[in-house]
């Protein structure tokens, strides 16, 4: 009897303890939030890829990836820093965000980020292009994982350029060097009645890669060197800007191409997503146009060099379950077949060796002539050009932002003065503004 009694009491106690427990196994998926840059203000192809993950692997593994923000790297940079510094009013950091190493370097505590080496084996990492992996290493940790890489490309509105070429004898080959391109831009301005030929998204990169391609260091420590090759790059560029052949307004290069205010641009290969196939003029007439991609120009006496671009993915440390989910998603996104499908929908390059092998077949499947020409230009660039990666300087972003703003502002002012003065020769103003720019940058 005593034994029966004891057994019942033990059972009652055990059941009571179980009953008191709050936790109930939930059928909810682990939801990962992401901020990314692939398709700002458009129907983002990455969102479609993420939906595919959610419907397949995600369903099986109980992982749901939710896009919280599609923007650009600068916006994400600011949002990440605000969140990391726990600024009042800032949004919480997502589980995943797309960013350049410069953002991680600027974070108050990069240790809040996951080291991808902890969830990828050495064999797995060997599948990736070593330079891409190296680019994401910060203080011995792999904090920025490559998911897609891009470079700079020259986009030309061939429909309008052909019209100009027919009248003036200009050739598309003229745009293969910076000297030729800027020279042509001045002719185009005359022909078009004051419109610019070229818009450049990254004036800072033009000078940086330009100097390096001519064998001179662009940086002197954490400042700009302003050596003789800088002057060499400045001269044709500033001439085009002052005389009206170079677009100097703020905003992306896609804007003037959309309105017909420029017919060529240099920007990230990823901007292919944002080039419209028609131009809308100020009187609301529209015209269908062909946008074609070419390798970026180089200096006549310089090496063929181009900027390596493409941010990587960062993950915020969390519990084991979430970190496992993060690793599952990143491995899936960078698996060769998925990665090639993803990158070719957004104008990027894959990040694995196997992905590069699959690329030609995927390019064949592309319908858009614009995308086809982009990948032809990309393959040409890979064959002929040296890729340049920007140094990981703490003040890189500040330098870049100040440079972009100042150079556009000063040259707009110079162009206005030049127009008002009505002089033929712009060389004096060219020199004057180089000195001003150098002085302003050093002061900043």
């Amino acid at each position, binding site marked *: *009897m005593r034994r*029966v*009694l004891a057994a*019942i*009491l033990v*059972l*009652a106690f055990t*059941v*009571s303890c*179980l*009953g008191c427990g*709050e936790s*109930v*196994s*939930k*059928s*909810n*998926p682990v*939801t990962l*939030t992401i901020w990314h840059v692939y*398709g*700002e*203000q*458009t*129907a*983002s192809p990455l*969102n479609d890829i993420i939906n595919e993950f*959610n419907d397949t692997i995600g*369903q099986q593994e109980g992982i*749901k990836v*939710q896009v*919280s*923000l*599609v*923007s650009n790297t600068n*916006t994400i940079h600011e*949002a990440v820093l*605000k969140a990391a510094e726990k600024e*009042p*009013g*800032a*949004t919480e950091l997502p589980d995943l965000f797309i960013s350049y190493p410069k953002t991680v370097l600027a974070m108050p505590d990069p240790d809040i980020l996951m080291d991808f080496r902890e969830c990828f084996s050495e064999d797995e990492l060997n599948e990736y292009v070593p330079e891409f992996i190296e680019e994401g290493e910060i203080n011995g940790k792999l904090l920025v994982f490559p998911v897609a890489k891009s470079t700079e490309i020259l986009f030309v509105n061939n429909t309008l350029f052909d019209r100009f070429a027919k009248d003036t004898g200009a050739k598309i080959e003229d745009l293969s060097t910076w000297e030729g391109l800027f020279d042509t831009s001045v002719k185009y301005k005359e022909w078009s009645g004051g419109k610019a030929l070229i818009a450049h998204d990254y004036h800072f990169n033009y000078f940086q890669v330009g100097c390096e391609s001519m064998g001179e260091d662009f940086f002197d420590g954490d400042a700009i060197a302003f050596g003789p090759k800088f002057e060499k790059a400045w001269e044709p560029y500033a001439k085009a800007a002052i005389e009206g052949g170079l677009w100097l*307004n*703020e*905003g*992306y290069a*896609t*804007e003037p191409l*959309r*309105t017909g*205010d420029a017919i060529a641009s240099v920007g990230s290969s990823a901007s292919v997503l*944002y080039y*419209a196939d028609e131009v*809308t003029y*100020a*009187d*609301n*007439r*529209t015209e269908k146009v062909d946008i074609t991609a070419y390798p970026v120009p180089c200096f006549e006496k310089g090496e063929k060099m181009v900027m390596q671009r493409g941010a990587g993915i960062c993950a915020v440390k969390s519990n084991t379950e979430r970190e496992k989910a993060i690793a599952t998603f990143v491995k899936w996104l960078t698996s060769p077949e998925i990665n090639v499908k993803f990158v070719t929908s957004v104008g990027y390059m894959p990040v694995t060796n196997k992905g590069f092998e699959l690329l030609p077949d995927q390019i064949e499947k592309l319908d858009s002539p614009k995308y086809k020409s982009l990948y032809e230009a990309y393959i040409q660039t890979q064959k002929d050009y040296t890729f340049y990666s920007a140094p990981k300087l703490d003040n890189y972003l500040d330098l870049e932002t100040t440079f972009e703003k100042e150079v556009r502002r000063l040259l707009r002012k110079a162009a206005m003065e030049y127009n008002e003065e009505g002089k033929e020769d712009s060389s004096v103003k060219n020199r004057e503004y180089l000195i001003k720019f150098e002085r302003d940058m050093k002061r900043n």
Partner: protein
Amino acid sequence: MSNIIRKIKQIVYLSKHKGNDLRVKMMFYFIAIALTAIGFLIIVLVLSGRIFNVSAQMAGVMQNHLNNQAEKFSDELTQYTAYGIELSRSISKTVDDVLEEHNIEFYQMNNNPEVLEDLQSRIFQDINTVIKLGGSSGAYGLVDCTINTSVLGSGHSRAGVCLRLANVTGEFVLNPEVAIYRGSSEIARKNDVKLHTLWNLEFNTQNIPGYDDIMEKSRDTGKDYYWTERTVLEGTGDSCMLLCVPITGNRVRPYGLCGVDLNEKHFNLQYPALDTVYGSMITVITPYSDSQLLIENGMTGNTEGTWLDNTLGLKVEERSYYNAYGSTKEVYYGLSKEIPIKTLDGKTWMVSVLIPREGCDAYIRHKRIMFTALILAFTLAMLSIALHLSNRFVKPILAELDRKEGGDMPADLKELFDSLMASVETLTRAEYSVYEKYLEGYDIAQIPDELMISSNTVKKHNKSIYKKLNVSSFDELSLYFDLFRRCNRIDDLRKK
């Protein structure tokens, strides 16, 4: 039954008249019996759903959240509608000013780039203010004119300005970045605003639901506004609800249309998923038709923790505490509440809160099993305690009582009783008359008067009685009487 009650009465009697120790034990015994009965009662009530009803509790949580969300949405909608109406009045005044300054009629704005640019430049400021103050994802204003009536599709092309937030985030931003989605690129540059990636110069009114209708019929800004269902903005991945407010003025047809838009990202941030013990509770705001929530035409809050597909409708099945909402993919439990939204087709709109069924069912099952098992175990424990007390203390007492009651007395005592009863039969009539008086409680000294005999006669009869009954004295005889009386057998000592 009467036997049991009698025994309980006896136990109560014993517990009252015996020592403290027995009383405490008896008290424990009764408490255990009472708790066992209560336990069984609770189990019956739980199983019948009368008490500890998890479904009712869950419905209570849903109802609270639903009321909050419905109130919040109604407030928000009222606020944005008010912004839209004010914007309409402001643009109406601006149009009048522009027409007066340029000394033209309204229709003369067609093919007039200079006037239209002037007008856009002015309404840009109002729209920019609305988007920055109001917190909507976009704001717009268009007039019923086009810059070029000779281009293809000019019948649906209308001039105006649409600004959209470059990034819809949850951050507090004093001066959020905006992009111009529709409007002159020159105005964008003058105001240092980027062109939206999918910029166009003018609006295509075919993409504004109900545009032609409102331009034909609308006369009153404050009454003829409406909200559209979720609409995908031309070329973007953005889908939004659009507020359309007519801009009325000094002509029969309205000057144009204006309003704000609330995109999905906005709803995502404003209506986050609530993490409850039943699972993730999400909010959807949708049209309702044919017992179906038209998710594909409404807005969803953050769907974190669920697999809700915002392209599939949810069939509503009403239940006692909450409803079941099912699509081909998943089923949810939840509640809905009607909210007043002025729309073109007059459909009913609902705010609904939903929790994935799987999580709810698992929770309800878990809680019900745990509680029932807990009460059952408790009841069984009480029952076994009662049994233990019964075996240990109550049973022996009852056995003793039964024995006393049923004459199950020790053999020697029984022999004594039988012998005494047999001896009574041997008494003579005279002896028995004396003996009977003793049996009735009389003393020796009272007998002579009672029976009208002498004391010596009494002594003689006593001697004979004692001898026949085998007792040595009157005291001994009295003791036997007492014993028989206590055993309720006093009558056995009478002659048959």
